[in-house]
């Protein structure tokens, strides 16, 4: 199944790119709105992908980046973009898998086709799931990312011990999926590893430190921590290092921002899972172009994959290219 969708993506991309010159003639008319979740390096790299594809295909892109994460911030921006009346496709990272359904349905009714990137609506299955109106979901399979993180952490701690998850907010499809995949692997593949809890830091790094420090007190033989985003991992890593456990307790960080890489070099985190936001942005625009050109066989779900970065391979150019490089 996954193979199929990947093949589909490649096929669609090939269509889009090979006929790029031809498409760009017809594409003059279409305008794409790009509305990521929040201003951060991950989405800024995605924006680079969006702009690169748009430039190649001669598409106009209107980008709006919310200053903070949240439905209540993203919705008014979305409504304003819809109100412009000139947007044909919207590439969006919904900030809540349930609450954003209504606002996006309104956009659809206004004649805008939706492609979700990074995060999805409903359960992300736009073929048979509760939400089917978006054209496609292009992102990491966050559940898979959680699985990969789990395997990376399991390997780092030698396949046994207690691990802990520090996450940001509940009901956000991306971090929720990461935790689900993480738990699944630990339960099924590593019987000697016990997940002893999950805390939500509500995007507050100070809280992440305090929660992890308290967990280290509660579970003195903790072996590893999974931070479901950079700041969770950074907070967790700070608590670990200050408890004198740097190197002894492994910390996995999701997202290869330059900050995360700095923390990796400092020894605060031990593994960094890189997503491929550039590909997400690039593919999303290509899909919009292909749809506009009449391609009907676009896959409803595309996974862009991961790279795992640790202190040994961080300087390898093959790996380093996945670090989120944002122009200053």
């Amino acid at each position, binding site marked *: 199944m996954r193979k199929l969708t990947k093949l589909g993506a490649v096929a669609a991309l090939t269509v889009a790119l090979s006929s790029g010159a031809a498409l760009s003639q017809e594409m003059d008319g279409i305008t794409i709105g790009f509305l990521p979740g929040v201003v951060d390096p991950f989405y800024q790299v995605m924006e680079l992908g969006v702009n690169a594809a748009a430039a190649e295909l001669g598409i106009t892109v209107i980008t709006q980046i919310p*200053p903070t994460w949240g439905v209540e911030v993203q919705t008014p921006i979305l409504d304003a973009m819809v109100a412009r009346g000139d947007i044909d496709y919207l590439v969006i990272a919904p900030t809540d898998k349930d609450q954003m359904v209504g606002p996006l349905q309104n956009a659809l009714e206004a004649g805008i086709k939706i492609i979700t990137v990074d995060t999805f609506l409903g359960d992300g299955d736009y073929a048979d799931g509760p939400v089917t109106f978006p054209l496609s979901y292009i992102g990491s399979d966050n559940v898979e990312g959680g699985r990969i993180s789990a395997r990376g952490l399991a390997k780092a701690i030698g396949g046994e011990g207690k691990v802990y998850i520090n996450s940001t907010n509940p009901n956000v499809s991306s971090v929720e999926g990461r935790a689900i995949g993480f738990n699944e692997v630990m339960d099924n593949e590593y019987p000697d590893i016990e997940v002893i809890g999950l805390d939500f830091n509500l995007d507050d790094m100070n809280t992440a430190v305090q929660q992890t*420090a308290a967990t280290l007190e509660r579970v*003195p033989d903790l072996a590893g921590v999974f931070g479901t985003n950079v700041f969770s991992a950074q907070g967790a890593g700070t608590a670990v290092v200050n*408890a*004198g456990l740097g190197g002894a307790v492994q910390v996995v960080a999701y997202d290869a921002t330059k900050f995360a890489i*700095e923390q990796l070099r400092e020894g605060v985190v031990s593994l960094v899972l890189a997503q491929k936001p550039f590909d997400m942005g690039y593919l999303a625009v290509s899909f919009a172009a292909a749809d506009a050109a009449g391609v009907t066989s676009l896959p409803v779900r595309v996974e862009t994959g991961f790279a795992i970065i640790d202190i040994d391979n961080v300087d390898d150019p093959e790996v380093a290219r996945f670090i989120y490089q944002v122009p*200053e």
Partner: protein
Amino acid sequence: MAQPDPEAAAKAEFAAPKTRSTTDQIILSIIQVWAGVFLAILILVFVISIPLVSGSSVSFLTVRNSQNILVAITPILLLGLGQTFVIISGGIDLSVGWVMSFASVISALALREAYNAGLALPLAVVVGFGTAVIGSGFVGFLNGVIIAKLKVPPFIVTLGMSFIVRGAALLMSENTTVIGLPRGVRDYGNESLLYFIRGEGGGFYFFTKPEISGEMLRRMDRIISYPVLVTVIVVAISIFVLRRTKFGRHTYAIGGNREAAVRAGVPVDRHIIKLYMLSAATAGIAGFLSMLRFTAGSAVIGDPLLLSSIAAVIIGGVSLFGGSGSLVGTVIGSLIIAVLTTGLVMLNVQSFWQFIVVGAVVILAVLIDQSRDMIKNKIETR
């Protein structure tokens, strides 16, 4: 000059001195220290319940845990500190959380630029500190001038300013986070005055981190980390200033009866400007310390802290109407919040419960404050 006539010195008695019944006296004393009592009970509850729930080897009362809690309260306490002065004077500063984020960003930028320009790291850290304090102090100056001179309510001014500062922080930061700080900055934010290694080969180490590795690191406690040290110094100075100086006296006077202070010749406008500068500056110090701690400037780091800091101030017994309260109360209020978070996590209870408890305690604090006035009135009319 007419001397007072000793004969006429039939010292007229005013109304008989008021007496308080013993019960009222006891109730009043409990009310005065209830926050401290609540904190003690809270700690006791955690001390007893945590080993029961999480295993007998787990203890709430450890050196490391106490240090964790102290580190955790530093930002809340620093924000609450200036806020205490402002609220005692009858105002409020809603911009502190965002000023903290702003200071975190500008101090990171300044530190990095100073270091890249060839300054030694300790000096670059000092430059970062100065930038945080001066930059946020300037924001406070703007708050104060608009409030004191243009007579706009503090609620509005500081609310507006928090948006401005937030925008500035996001614009100045590089994608919300300023990174690329020199190595070693981490140590300023995380190392400490004193180290203690438990057990074999252990002991105390002052100022320098012992060169140890592996298993011994696990037995090392950092006691009074630098952010805690800075906070303790700032708190001590602030307590002195509020209790023992003209500045503190004027702060209470303005909150008690602003008109009286004006008529008595207290430079009220200038004082109010200074209060908002102080509030912003302590928020700036909080931003600077978190920048050191996380080795990065963050344009969002202080955002969630405003409400916690105001809660700490109210739990500590500062009246929102101005005129009364103390910094010791704010310290206790901050401790209650931090102890709750740590304790609940150690009980493996979802830490969202913390909000429910804190909310209840805030309301309780105000109720107790009102009943204090009621008992006082009861005594007066007796």
